[in-house]
């Protein structure tokens, strides 16, 4: 009898463990960071454009044109921290336009760091060195 119970307990324990593992895998996929390129396409294209040169579909009536991310001279004048802050807290946080909103509700810090790296690829530049 004890053996039968033990067996069943072991089996139900295994089942629980399997469920737990599946749940962890599932939640991990939900929380997984998106690729910087995909985030850029989804959220940045609308203003910064498909080529990243600041001519997205929204610019027609804007009072201030979005940054050209391929402009090495402009982009190298900004540190990675400043770019991080502009994305996370919006343009006003770095004394720039209110038209650039906060993206902290959408991106995790990890995703913003990846986006900063992606911007450096677009401009082919580093801070202080275009």
């Amino acid at each position, binding site marked *: 009898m004890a053996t039968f119970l033990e067996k069943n307990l072991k089996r139900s324990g295994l089942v629980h463990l399997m469920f737990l593992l599946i749940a962890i895998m599932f939640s991990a*996929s*939900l929380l*997984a960071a*998106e690729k910087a390129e*995909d*985030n850029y*396409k*989804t*959220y940045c*294209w*609308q*203003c910064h*454009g*498909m*080529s990243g040169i600041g*001519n*997205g*579909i*929204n*610019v*027609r*009536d*804007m009072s201030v044109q979005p940054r050209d991310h391929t402009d090495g001279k402009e982009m190298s004048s900004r540190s990675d921290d400043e770019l991080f802050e502009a994305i996370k807290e919006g*343009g006003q946080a770095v004394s720039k*336009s*209110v*038209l*650039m*909103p*906060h*993206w*902290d*509700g*959408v991106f995790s810090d990890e995703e913003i760091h990846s986006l900063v790296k992606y911007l450096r690829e677009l401009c082919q530049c580093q801070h202080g060195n275009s």
Partner: protein
Amino acid sequence: MLLISLRKWSAVTVIAFSLSLLLMSPMVVSAQVSGEQILKEQCSSCHQLVGPAPATLKELWERKGPDLFYAGNKYKQDWLLAWLQQPKRIRSAGMFYGNHIEVSDDGDVIKKDTLTAHPSLAADQALAVTDALIKLKPNSDLIVAGEYKPGKISVTMGELRFDKFRGCMACHEIEPGYGGLSGPEVYTAAKRLQEDYMMSFMRNPQAWDPKSFMPNMHLKEGDLEKFVHYFRVLSEKDF
């Protein structure tokens, strides 16, 4: 003899009448198709009728129309009924703008030939679908019922807040042909959307739609109500 013949004919008439009734019955049934059934058969290929909202970008890109699983929390009933019979585009660049744009010498432009028109429904179908949609309220916990209190704001002051102070016009048109194109037009927002929903969505868009490309604008509570006043003023204008 005559009597037998008459009986025979009346039997034939009864059978023919019964058969015609049987043949007509599918038509009668189709006119009484439930809104839920129409949604499932005709709308579900483009609209999510069951949650949750997209949790990944891939799902977001595949979305062809707005999620309808919380339609009863979101839309105004009279607007739904009218719009379903005479649908008109609300998002200039489609549901996910990234699927409908291309590079041109004048900057990115909308590829209009990739946008499909929404089918229109007959009056009885629109009524059935509206009744079914308005029952879908799984997100009531995100809404504070009666939160919005009607008030007034001038178009100039509303525009100043919406455009200059908060930069929302970057993505939304505030009148036909003026404003951003990636987001839905806001000059019809108050016709379409429940006021308490607008307050809740603007306060935290990601609570409704985690991958929405409307960011959390960190609006002050006072802004939320004033924006809704502004949308109501805009919706009364005859553009």
